[in-house]
């Protein structure tokens, strides 16, 4: 994805509103939680809560700035969700972070005897509910947690929430692509050789 061609004309948002809407980032769920209320734009007639895209964009930029302060090899991404697995692998590949797609082995962050033991400085969870084991272990060892949160998520043990649709194939690919691009841009690397389609689940994991 080329950074300049997708830049919104006013330069304030990472990408145009239409691109956000077409990726379905604003689509929430029919449940809402108290903590996610401030990120909800409105409720549709069928009871579906819609996420405020401006806030999503703002939070992606904040998260990119935040992650840029850490060594990329100390960033760990987890996704138990099927559609989040390829995006995190490509994110890890493009930024130098580490990813655990699929099952998170209990003790990965807390048990030094395990062969898969890791000591990250920050955790990125695709869904704080589905990845609750990883979030809990991050809480035990005291590292900050960045999480993609939908309208039905509780922000318990989450330190930086990115309000977005964390269930859709397209939206997860879109968010991780934007996050990776912004993270590299924050580090001063302007070239980003991946398209959103590269992040999208469906093909084989790389």
């Amino acid at each position: 994805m080329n950074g300049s061609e997708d830049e919104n004309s006013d330069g304030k948002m990472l990408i145009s509103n239409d691109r956000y809407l077409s990726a379905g980032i604003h689509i929430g769920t029919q449940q809402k939680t108290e903590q996610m209320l401030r990120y909800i734009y409105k409720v549709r007639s069928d009871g579906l809560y819609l996420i405020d895209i401006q806030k999503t964009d703002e939070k992606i930029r904040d998260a990119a700035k935040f992650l840029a302060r850490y060594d990329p090899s100390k960033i760990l991404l987890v996704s138990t969700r099927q559609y989040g697995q390829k995006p995190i692998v490509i994110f890890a590949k493009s930024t130098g972070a580490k990813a655990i797609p699929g099952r998170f082995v209990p003790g990965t962050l807390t048990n030094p005897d395990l062969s898969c033991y890791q000591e990250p400085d920050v955790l990125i969870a695709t869904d704080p509910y589905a990845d609750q084991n990883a979030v809990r272990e991050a809480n035990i060892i005291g590292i900050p947690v960045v999480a993609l949160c939908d309208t039905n998520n509780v922000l318990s043990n989450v330190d930086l929430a990115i309000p977005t649709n964390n269930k859709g194939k397209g939206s997860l690919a879109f968010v991780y692509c934007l996050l990776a691009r912004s993270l590299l841009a924050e580090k001063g690397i302007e070239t980003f050789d991946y398209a959103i389609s590269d992040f999208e689940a469906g093909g084989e994991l790389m």
Partner: protein
Amino acid sequence: MTKTKAIENCTSCNVRLVEAGFTRFPCPTCGETIARCVKCRKQAIRYICPNCGYEGP
């Protein structure tokens, strides 16, 4: 790891950080250290950066 200033109290509730499970991290916008105690993390209590006013989570 990013060097974070060792502040002793939670940014939200000002309790001393003694119980395991607290965290310190740089503010996403200004880099000022933010600390959160276990309870504030668990109950998702809002934190405000003392330097720039950034609100989270």
